[in-house]
């Protein structure tokens, strides 16, 4: 009788391919979320400045596709949490692998989803501009940011992808904690909101640690490092868990 030798990486890669096919349907939800965000971005300007005197009224409406990115972040949060649920973990059972390969393939899928969501949501800035071009008088459109510079588009994509990766790591870790003990479902939000209230300064500096970083390589490093830690914690936690109880 031959005994099959498998290494962890091969098993993880196979599971990743399997999951990519299994979960592609989740893209539909992203598309709907982004379309919805596009409508909101178009109808409701993110910023509005109105000035005037009794003879003049000048309104400057500011538009951006930030809402699409935010909605896509919501999407990736739900995806990351969904992946940790028992229902989704059961999909791994007929496949060769361990908890580690299951987690690694989840991480792989989440990173793929981050890249996809980061790219598409950043491209919505382009779509929004084109729609605006055709629906409103161009003499009202301010050219400066309308002519989205290509390097900015790429920068936006990279940053969006990095944010998605970070947030998916956070959500995945939360999901795993919730699987370890349901109490975490309550503890984590209480902890976050509690520390927001009590340690406002500390939380702000944590927030600024990422959002306030203006040097891209350092920002990427911070994000990758944090995501790695969060995914690592998730992996260690779930490695001891039983499945399919």
């Amino acid at each position, binding site marked *: 009788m*031959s005994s099959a030798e498998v290494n962890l990486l091969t098993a993880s890669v196979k599971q990743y391919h399997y999951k990519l*096919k299994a979960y592609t349907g989740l893209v539909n939800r992203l598309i709907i979320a982004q379309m919805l965000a596009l409508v909101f971005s178009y109808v409701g300007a993110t910023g509005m400045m109105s000035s005037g005197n009794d003879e003049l009224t000048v309104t400057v409406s500011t538009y951006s596709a930030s809402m699409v990115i935010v909605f896509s972040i919501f999407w990736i949060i739900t995806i990351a949490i969904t992946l940790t649920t028992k229902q989704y973990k059961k999909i791994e059972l*007929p496949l060769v692998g361990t908890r580690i*390969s299951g987690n690694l393939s989840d991480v792989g899928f989440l990173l793929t989803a981050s890249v996809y969501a980061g790219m598409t949501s950043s491209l919505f800035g382009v779509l929004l501009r084109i729609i605006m071009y055709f629906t409103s008088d161009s003499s009202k459109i301010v050219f400066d940011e309308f002519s989205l510079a290509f390097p900015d588009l790429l920068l936006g994509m990279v940053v969006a992808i990095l944010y998605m990766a970070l947030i998916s790591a956070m959500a995945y870790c939360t999901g795993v904690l919730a699987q370890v003990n349901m109490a975490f479902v309550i503890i984590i939000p209480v902890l976050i909101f509690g520390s927001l209230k009590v340690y406002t300064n500390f939380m702000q500096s944590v927030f600024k640690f990422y959002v306030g970083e203006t040097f891209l390589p350092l920002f990427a490093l911070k994000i990758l490092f944090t995501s790695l830690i969060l995914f690592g914690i998730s992996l260690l936690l779930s490695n001891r868990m039983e499945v*399919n109880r």
Partner: protein
Amino acid sequence: MGVIQCEDLTKFYGKIKAIDHLSFKIEENKITGLIGRNGSGKTTLLKMIAGYLKPTSGELNVFSGKPFNSLAVSANSIFIDDTMTFPDSLTLSDILTEVAPFYANWNSSLANGLFDYYSFNPQQPHSNLSKGTKSTFNSILGIASRCPLTILDEPTTGMDSAVRKDFYRALLKDYLEYPRTIIISSHLLSEIEELLEDILLINQGAKCLHLSVMELKELAVGIRGNAQVVLSFVEGKEILYQEDFTKGSLYVVIRRNLIEQQFELIKQSGLELFPVSTDDLCIYLTANTKGGIGDVFSRG
């Protein structure tokens, strides 16, 4: 060298004991039936062997390694039951092609042959299948994966008898062609005893019996006749089962080796001797009370 070696294995779910100091050994390339009543711990035991659950205490070795969360065990075993889930974005034919790369010995011509034989709709998602067809489909995976250790937990749930017979034949044929260690848990022992070599009977998490089917068939004997006469023979011996009939007639089941010398005497006394079916015997062996359900109604 046994494929599965189990020593003093215990499993608790919180405070509930599911497996109670179980010890056994399953040899390579044998088909073993895991028999037990509902809630006796069959599924728990199989999931520990498959590496899904962690033993609370005791030793469990599969392919001479601990199975829990083990890649080697996962690569060399498959666990088939009716709760297997597959994503809806994969059709049945997709599942066969997508699962195949995971299993080194996968026989796709066999898988496709069985798939066509049962005339599945290749475009259907797994979750849409009825209970019986789901079991049938899962059994294809179990057979075609040709894993050195194939674990089938209640594989025939919901199947009609024609499909069940086909499944048993397919399993046996492929086993003969490609021997491997197979564990089938079932409560329909009468149907699968032709297939099995060994039987592991567990009751309330503890081992009751572990012997070959031939031995089990010969294990006990039933005696029927006048109550007083029957009792005179079995007095003081362990009675596995006892049932009162009308007109002072009594039926008892007793281990053959306790009474073998007295067979001639029993026949002369006008009592009848019956072989006991393995199915019935397992029920008697795992019964909590000696009387069976009839006692509930004959009280008072």
